[in-house]
């Protein structure tokens, strides 16, 4: 309707004047010092930076896992700052998918149960349709035959692929991957990154990946470089 709504239509997520401060007084740490950022819809964006640069904090704020000290975040057209904890949780459940570096899966559930978990948490009935979709995603990721196994019986690469499948199963508006290849060897890393890129190309999934490896960032369409709580640059 108005001019300002136009960018939200094209941006999957947007941050304006984002700051995040931990501690008080002498121990005060500024993780983010005023970040403005727009994540393009249907693109593979990498957020890069050395450890302690604030890239993880930025991701946590964008994903609604943490609240910024000041500034605004909008994801999938929804401003996050006015949501309470429960609303934020439901918002994550419905709009955001996650792949973490490690401890991605719940050890007591099988791979298949882990993939279905977001649907269950949302209280959705597991129908033939959702099951078929989960199976399709799992097959695409090459783990279709391992769904009955516990995470401890899977290799690191397989575990990450299960995590990606779980993130995709809800068809989230945006998928965040936090150092998804941090624990993997280079060959397996390449496979996992390839799967992420294919989900962008083939499914039109928006993916944001936090990484400190340039080789991983090379798979992305856009690379956002973060240093000392600032955005240093954006390359396309």
């Amino acid at each position, binding site marked *: 309707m108005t001019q300002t709504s136009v960018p939200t239509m094209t941006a999957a997520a947007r941050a304006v004047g984002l700051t995040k401060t931990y501690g008080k007084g002498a121990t005060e740490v500024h993780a983010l010092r005023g970040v403005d950022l727009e994540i393009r819809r249907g693109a593979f964006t990498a957020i890069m930076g050395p450890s302690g640069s604030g890239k993880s904090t930025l991701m946590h704020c964008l994903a609604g896992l943490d609240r910024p000290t000041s500034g605004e975040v909008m994801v999938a057209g929804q401003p996050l700052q006015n949501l309470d*904890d429960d609303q934020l*949780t*439901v918002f994550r*459940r419905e709009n955001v998918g996650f792949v973490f570096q490690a401890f991605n899966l*719940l050890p007591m559930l099988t791979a298949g149960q882990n993939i279905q*978990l977001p649907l*269950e948490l949302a209280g959705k009935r597991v129908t033939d349709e959702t099951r078929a979709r989960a199976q399709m995603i799992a097959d695409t990721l090459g783990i279709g035959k391992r769904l009955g196994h516990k995470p401890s019986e899977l290799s690191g690469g397989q575990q990450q692929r299960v995590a990606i499948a779980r993130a995709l199963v809800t068809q989230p508006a945006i998928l965040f991957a936090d150092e998804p290849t941090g624990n993997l060897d280079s060959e397996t890393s390449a496979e996992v990154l390839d799967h992420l890129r294919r989900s962008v190309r083939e499914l039109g999934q928006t993916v944001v990946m936090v990484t400190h490896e340039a080789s991983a960032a090379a798979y992305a369409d856009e690379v956002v470089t973060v240093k000392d709580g600032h955005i240093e640059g954006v390359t396309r």
Partner: protein
Amino acid sequence: MRTVLFASLRTYARRYAAAVVAVVAAVALIVVTNALTSATKSGLFAGIDAPFRNAVGAVDLPTEEVTQKYTEKGGWALAASMQPVRTDKAMLGQEVMVGAVSTEKRWQWQELEAGRFPTRAGESVVDANAAKTNKVAIGDTLRVGTGESAVETTVVGLVDAPSMWSSPVYVTWPEMQGWKNPYVQAVLTAGTGDEADKWLNTDDYLTELQTQLNKEVNVVAYMVLIFAFIALFVSVLVITNTFSILFAQRMRDFALLRAMGATKRQVLRSVRREALALGLLASVLGLVVGAVLGWGIVAIVRQLAETAPLGEVALEWPWLLSAFVLGTLTTLVASWLPTRRLMRLSPLAALRPQEGFDVRGAGMFRLGLGVLGTLAGIGIIFVAVGWDDAQTGMLIVLVGCGITFLGVMLLGPALVPGLVRLAGAGLARVAGSPAKLAAANAGRNPKRTAATAASLLVGVTLTTGVLTGMNTIRAATLDEMAEQHPIDIALQAESEPLADSVVGDAKAVPGVADAVAVPGALASVEAEGKPVPVPVVAPPAGDIALRDLTVKPGTMVLSPVAASAFVEDSFEASGEKVTLTVGDRTATVTLDVREIDGAAQISAATLRELTTDPQTYAVWVRADAGADPEDLAGTLGVLAPDAELINGKAQRAWVELQLDVFTWAVIGLLAISVLIALAGIANTLGLSVLERGREHALLRALGLTKRQLRRTLAAEAVLLSAVAAVVGTALGVFFAWGGSEILIGDMLPDARFDPPVLQLIGVVVVAGVAGLVSCVVPSKRATKVSPAEGLALD
């Protein structure tokens, strides 16, 4: 390593909370027991020698002849009898202990507070405290006893007496001798006595008496100690579990120490010292808590009940030392297994990614042993049930129960998670994914889950076993009481019939549902050539009593006491024929001797043979269910002062009260073990929450709301405690069945096994709710962590 030890203690102090609570509770229970027994002993022994001041010696529990022999020679009987006591205004009590007071100065051992000692029969003294509470004053007239043996006596003094010999009322000895069977604890002698009478000089007698009392008090103390040992056993389970979890969480630290050059022995010694320090600290705390509680309880009891025989608390070193050593030892023993596991630790473990915890289930050997134990135990119980000798059978049942329980505990890692999963699947239908997650969580570490459940299992099994067993015994005992005392309250005439007005007056008393006049006569039976008066009544048909008391024609039902007036061996007299005579009419009846209240009972037909003009020889009263039997007896007694008042309802109520008090005292003591187990559940859950910080963060990131997370933890606690409660109840009921089957048929011929379903459901519900309460703190802590913080956790 000392730096590591102290730093560990400081860092992990809060995580040891449950272990400390467990040891403190068990140690404190021992100390409180000692406080109460020492106060009881000093209360009992205070002034125990007062009556003996002028005695040369005494005979304990003398026969009637011995009592007479020494009292005639100037001695004195320490006697008491339970009698109804009333003033002209009110009933003071149906069963009041009445002691004897001497008119001779040297046996007047009571301390005079006001007035004077009696100088003749018909005068009495009253305990000053009892006088105050019952509003009795010097100059009042008391009526003590029932029927024709009742005495009228005037209160001339108020006295105080050492608790061992104290009674509320004292009448003179000659008056007491008229009562059926006064209890003589000892006869004090004015001179030396005969060895043959088991006479002892005063010093020896008092030493003997104190030893005896000591033993009696100690028996009670040892029974309470059983519960302290149960509490200690549960503590071992809780502490073992706490250490297992803590060490699993700290595996990386230990491995790091090893990598830096600490030897296995150094690491092991460090953690064992940690356990020792914990045990010492908790035991000291237990001593302090126990001492404070003990003193507090004694002080409160003395404040509330001035006549309670409690003296000063004097804690004894052997008790304190044992409690302390037991507490410390329990902690050390409990930490032994978990610390042994550290021996397998390799330094490399520090460098590997943390796998979190030991998730292996139980080995086949353990499970096999568990199956074997369970089956063997059950088999033993079934064998024992058919045993002829009840005492041996009971012992075998106990052994069977123990083996079954151990078997089930060994099976725990397979049994408990399986049952939790089953229950979780049921709960998931209503509670959704939190219940599913909770069931999966409970199954992830079978040994830990089983150990946590086992601690609760002990308390629940014992509680439900006692409840079920006592319910069977209680039903049988109350049935027997109803059989023996079927009439609520009876006014029984002795030689003169009751006035016609009594039954009408009785009906008008509030609390009386119905009253009937029972026709009868004063018959006589010839014994050794002389006629013996025997009052007889003919019970009417109807529902005045708990069962139909009508007698078959030609039979006379009577108590052994009544029969002893005219037959040799009253207990063997059933079947004998006697001839009843009233005036010039006679009737021959067959005796049926059994424990009944009141006069001999014959049929209406037999009574018609004996007399054409039967008179009211008893009034039977049925009371309203809620009426107080003592109050009722007080009012009814006034209607016929010369009649004997038989209070069946009060006797039944008294037995019921005794059974209830016993049951609830046992349950109360077992509750300590249950509380320790619940602290254990809270602790396991709390430690699991710490351990699963990252998982919870992941779940929260994926869209689990705070409330759903809380519900997950709540479901885990409830599932765990409910499964333990259900398994424990099943075991408890089964064990109680074994025990009751032995008693039934031998000691309790008419008993039926009767589980108290409502109470058992109550136990399971309470356990579930307690599980819910135990998860409050852990779940609060879990939801305080934001997802972003949680993901950063190691």
